[in-house]
């Protein structure tokens, strides 16, 4: 009897211990486990990939709602896209529902003839933790062109809520993304969409990834999807801003964003802002400096109603503000004169009347050849101070193709002087 007890006791000790030991010592087994789970995740989400040819997209609903970047799909309201399936991929027609040219998002509807298509859910991007793993799906350098099976890359979430490159609340990742990944998804380990990859930072002459990719977060996209869910004709939609509110440009401000100036009769004045107020929250978001204030506001469509919490004379106050439209759009409208001088950029107003920010630099245009990059802020054009898009339009209107113009831009905190040789628009 005691012997039987002893046997059981020994077994009770050996079995769990050996199980644990086997688990600990086999590092390769651990790695194999990790990679199997990663491969399973990839297999689960890849079918929802959309190939636009020069760019990527992702399906987010079973009836075929597609999200991509505006700079991938914006120039046509009708597309033939491909998804994985079969040797050349499966073709679908996609119709533009609306495009956000400032936030660089376009939403389209696949024509699925009632069939369900593979899709992924959208995560709550405010719950992303830095250090999380992420995969990107895309067609960098047109690699998915043959069968539309997406290229997969793996990395971590490097930072969140970064206001950079025209993306006001970007997710930064070191998962390799390159030209062609634009419009494609950044996905977490649960298979949910975190954001849409749209920009990279380069530091060598090749236009390739060097470890920084920027993605537009889902919460921003969801806000626009909710506000514009009835828009289905391919219209441009607009972001919001608080007109007349000038904040002190002090990024190291520890308490919040300091209001420096209020324009008379502006939205800011009517909402009740006063000079000296320190903005500490916008809705549920903490505001630590002016960069973050513009970053948060930049995720809302025009006419959104926001609660702004601020400190005034030591007391906390909350104001309600309805956002104005943030001016934006192409440097010139479709009806422009093809013989006019032309730069080749898409820009938007920098809040604070601080200049004009380049959302996009079209390849092989005067701006591109001069070295301008998305994210640059033009502060001076041909010796004239530039505060808003009208200033640039006026200044350009006075020039001719062939003119050489000196342009001052702010890039990552540095002021650069570039020389642009203007060209005729042609049919661009």
């Amino acid at each position, binding site marked *: 009897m005691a012997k039987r007890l002893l046997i059981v006791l020994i077994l009770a000790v050996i079995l769990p211990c050996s199980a644990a030991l086997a688990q600990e010592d086999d590092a390769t087994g651990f790695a194999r486990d990790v*990679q199997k789970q990663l491969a399973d995740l990839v297999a689960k989400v890849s079918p929802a990939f959309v190939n636009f040819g020069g760019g990527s997209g992702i399906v987010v609903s079973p009836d075929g709602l597609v999200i991509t970047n505006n700079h991938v799909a914006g120039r046509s309201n009708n597309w033939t896209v491909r998804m994985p399936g079969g040797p050349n991929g499966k073709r679908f027609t996609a119709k533009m529902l609306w495009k956000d040219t400032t936030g660089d998002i376009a939403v389209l509807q696949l024509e699925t003839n009632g069939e369900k298509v593979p899709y992924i859910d959208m995560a709550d991007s405010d719950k992303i933790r830095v250090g999380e793993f992420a995969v990107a799906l895309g067609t960098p350098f047109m690699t998915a062109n043959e069968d539309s099976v997406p290229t997969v890359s793996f990395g971590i979430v490097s930072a969140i809520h970064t206001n950079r490159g025209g993306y006001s609340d970007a997710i930064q990742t070191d998962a390799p993304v390159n030209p062609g990944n634009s419009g494609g998804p950044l996905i977490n380990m649960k298979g949910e969409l975190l954001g849409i990859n749209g920009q990279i930072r380069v530091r060598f002459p090749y236009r390739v990834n060097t470890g920084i990719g920027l993605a537009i977060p889902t919460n921003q996209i969801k806000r626009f999807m909710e506000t514009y869910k009835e828009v289905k004709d391919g219209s441009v939609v607009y972001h919001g801003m608080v007109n007349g509110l000038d904040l002190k440009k002090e990024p190291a401000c520890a308490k919040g964003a300091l209001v420096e100036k209020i324009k008379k009769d502006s939205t800011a004045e009517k909402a009740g802002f006063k000079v000296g107020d320190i903005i500490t929250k916008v809705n549920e978001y903490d505001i630590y400096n002016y960069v973050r204030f513009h970053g948060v506001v930049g995720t809302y469509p025009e006419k959104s109603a926001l609660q702004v919490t601020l400190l005034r004379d030591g007391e906390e106050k909350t104001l309600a503000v309805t956002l104005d439209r943030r001016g934006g759009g192409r440097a010139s409208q479709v009806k422009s004169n093809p013989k006019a001088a032309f730069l080749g950029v898409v820009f938007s107003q920098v809040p604070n009347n601080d200049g004009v920010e380049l959302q996009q630099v079209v390849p092989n245009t005067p701006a591109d050849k001069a070295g301008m990059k998305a994210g640059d802020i033009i502060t001076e054009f041909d010796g004239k101070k530039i505060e808003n898009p009208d200033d640039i339009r006026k200044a350009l209107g006075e020039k001719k193709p062939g003119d050489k113009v000196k342009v001052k831009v702010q890039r990552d905190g540095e002021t650069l002087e570039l020389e642009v040789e203007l060209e005729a628009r042609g*049919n661009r």
Partner: protein
Amino acid sequence: MRNVFLLLVAAAFLSGAQPLYSQEEVGADNPMSRLQEAFRNAADKVENFVVSIDVERDASKPETADEEAPKPVLGREAQKRPGKYYRRPKGPVSGILISADGYIYTSWYNVRGDNIERIMVTLPDGSRLKAQRLGWDENTDIAVLKVDGKDMPHAEFTATDHLKPGHFVIVVGRGDDRLSLTVNSGIVSAVNRLEGRAIQIDAALNYGNTGGLVIDIDGKALGIACHVSDRAVTGQNSGVGFFTPQSKLAENLPLMKKGAVIPKEKKPFLGVQASDGAKDIEGAEVVRVLPNTPAAEAGMQDGDIVVEFNGSKIIDWDSLREEIAKTIVGQAVKLKVKRADKIVELDLTMGEKP
């Protein structure tokens, strides 16, 4: 009482069997260290197969006789000073021993050209041997070298059917000092690329580790890292990289060993960046004309929409691609493009796809 005591003892043993992921003191048992140990184990298995190769060239002679070869698409700054970036950097590259008697795989780019004076291979133990360049396959970017060897440790390749996107891969090469090992890790990005000639990975590939060995997490040899060159749009370390898998290596090895050259399939090439799929545009829209290409020389411009090619009406990029495929390199073609509401006729000579 005795039973209670025994139960307590049992409980004590059993609680010790929990997995050890201590949050307080970060010892070597944390998950990252375990992953790293797996990487180290895998690389250790193949270390001895990886050699360093010095390709000594006569700088006064051009690398290839064909001076008309299309130039790569580089960024703005590089286009201002092309000489600096087209130039192949100096320094050793990597290669892999594949037989006991000294056959070596490396990338063809590493040993491409007519101006090579000498190829020296440094073995892991530091000894140096002269190598002979045998044959190569320009499509898979693989070349075969031979050194005089006996009983050399060498790689044995494994089929790649088990690979899936998301699986870890490790690229092993030799560094600038010819002796230290270089290791880059990543995942499989796609299993069927370059018309079946390559598997795509996101590990960093550059001039230093091209020609190096790609292995899986178990240390099995999968193929040779390649398709890196000063002419590749993928540049260095972009995270878009390719390797030639075992099946493609095995296909042409006997021929290459005999010195045969499998030339690049000459595909006709226009030299533009397409805008696929935009349906509102009738014709094939050219988003961008790449510099130094047949399209550029013919006078095509960004934004042109091809409406007729070689006599055939063009309604979209698919039809244009079909028509291009019907031509051959060097063929003279006429095409019509729509430019600012006007139709412009262009004369173009088809180039070779780089």
